[in-house]
């Protein structure tokens, strides 16, 4: 994987081609696995971590699996390149910021990635565009089987896959769906959705930003329980609740356009105007404005830009992407003006194609 050409394109899962892609950005399956004969990462010495990395790197690279996985060792990467992988959602922030031997094996289409020496020795991840949990699980399950042929996992008859943290033990499975819920937020119903999901023992968190207000209106719904239920049960519980949340968002969008059409149109147009003309733009403001534009594009209130292009802007305006595309390190002030410049140029380009 070439770290310098990575920022120009975007992962396949962002393509907005999956089911319900106007609301469901992506579906993700994560499996936590550990080697049976080593201490967990938090208790492994630097030497042991190096041993684990060599052992797993060799097996991941030679895996009889399609697509082929490329291994990237993180210790040898600059902080900026590590940040780039975080922004692509190929690795966690924790893995990027930790120390010692660690890495990630990535499929060229970025749908599959396997982190090495995160909290667990192995974190398998499959991200699919749109609402496609079952497909993501099938890929993850197949990859898991192939890997287990070569790698002996820590497994307990009674407790299942053993993980560093007791909250992941059992299936080691975290299934999550990322949703764009701008209308539910605008109509002030997001808290209600939160409470309903929490009652069902599901976790909801904003993808970016803290607390209940997520910047960009992106929310991730995932399971909390990993023990005592099968993988299929866990996935079905989430899969069954998502259509209700989608229906909620659709209904809120209808209400907005029916009752507040001029105001919504104004909001969308202003957002587009600001993105295309501002001279200084923070990450957070960009997310919020792009969220309005995304809503407008989905509602057909704006025809200068399509969903794919909006999705791409979300990714490309992040700090590491900007810096990699410009080929230099920038402080946050410089980033804000470069981000504004990038948006002005890009929107002019997009607008030009459409006319």
């Amino acid at each position, binding site marked *: 994987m070439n770290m310098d050409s990575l920022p120009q394109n975007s992962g396949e899962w962002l393509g907005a081609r999956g089911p319900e892609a106007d609301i469901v950005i992506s579906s993700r399956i994560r499996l936590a696995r*550990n080697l*049976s*004969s*080593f*201490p*967990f990462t*938090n*208790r492994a010495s630097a030497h042991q971590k190096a041993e684990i990395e060599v*052992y797993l790197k*060799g*097996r991941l690279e030679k895996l009889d699996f399609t697509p082929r996985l490329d291994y990237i060792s993180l210790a040898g990467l600059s902080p900026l390149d590590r940040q780039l992988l975080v922004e692509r959602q190929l690795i966690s922030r924790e893995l990027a910021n930790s120390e010692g031997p660690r890495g990630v094996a990535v499929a060229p289409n970025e749908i599959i990635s396997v982190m090495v020496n995160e*909290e667990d020795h192995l974190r398998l991840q499959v991200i699919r565009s749109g609402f496609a949990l079952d497909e993501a699980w099938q890929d993850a*399950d197949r990859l*898991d*089987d192939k890997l*287990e*042929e*070569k790698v*002996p*996992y*820590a*497994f*307990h*008859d*009674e*407790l*299942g*896959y*053993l*993980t*560093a*943290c*007791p*909250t992941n*033990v*059992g*299936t080691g*499975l975290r299934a999550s769906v990322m949703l764009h819920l701008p209308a539910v937020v605008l109509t002030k119903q997001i808290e209600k959705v939160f409470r309903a999901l929490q009652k069902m*023992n599901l976790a909801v968190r904003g993808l970016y930003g803290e607390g209940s207000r997520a910047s960009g209106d992106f929310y991730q719904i995932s399971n*909390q*329980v*990993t*023990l*005592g*239920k*099968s*993988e299929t049960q*866990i996935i079905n519980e989430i899969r069954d609740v998502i259509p209700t949340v989608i229906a909620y968002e659709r209904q809120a969008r209808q209400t907005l356009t029916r009752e507040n059409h001029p105001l919504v149109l104004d909001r969308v147009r202003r957002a587009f105007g600001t993105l295309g003309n501002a001279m200084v733009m923070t990450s957070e403001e960009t997310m919020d404005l792009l969220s309005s534009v995304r809503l407008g594009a989905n509602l057909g209130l704006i025809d200068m830009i399509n969903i794919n292009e909006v999705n791409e802007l979300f990714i490309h305006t992040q700090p590491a992407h900007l810096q990699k595309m410009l080929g230099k390190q920038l402080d946050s002030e410089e980033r804000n003006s470069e981000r504004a410049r990038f948006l002005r140029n890009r929107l002019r380009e997009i607008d030009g194609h459409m006319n």
Partner: protein
Amino acid sequence: MHLTEIVNGKKKEKHFCQDCAQKQELLKQQDLNLTAILQSVIGQHVGGQTDELSRLTCPSCGIKYMEFKAAGRCGCPNDYQVFRQPLLPLLERIHRGVRHVGKVPPHAVLHAALQEELRDLRQQLRSAVEREAYEDAARLRDRIRIKEQTDEHG
């Protein structure tokens, strides 16, 4: 909020409400993360048995029960056996279930024997290094490499 202080082997238990605990700075608002919640859950479940539990140490990774409790993380797969007694109520509380009913690794049986042997050899290697018996260590290292190769092709 429960606080168990052990001073010179004497155990003192204190109980605080949320407000007092905050005044005592036992509980800082911003520290209310998963680890903190886990620790408090672990704490509640072991209540009166802390003395006995605090002597538990995993022979495999060397983690002490109190260290596990403080970090909310296990040190190695074997800890689930060693700390089984305090862990089961914790798992029940987190997951509302204590029995895995999901996937079983299809190749586990094939791996088991070889892994046992490898674990044993690695243990011997560690103690050889500690004894500074470097010839033994080199010999063990070679044996481990060969075993690992077998594993890779198997």
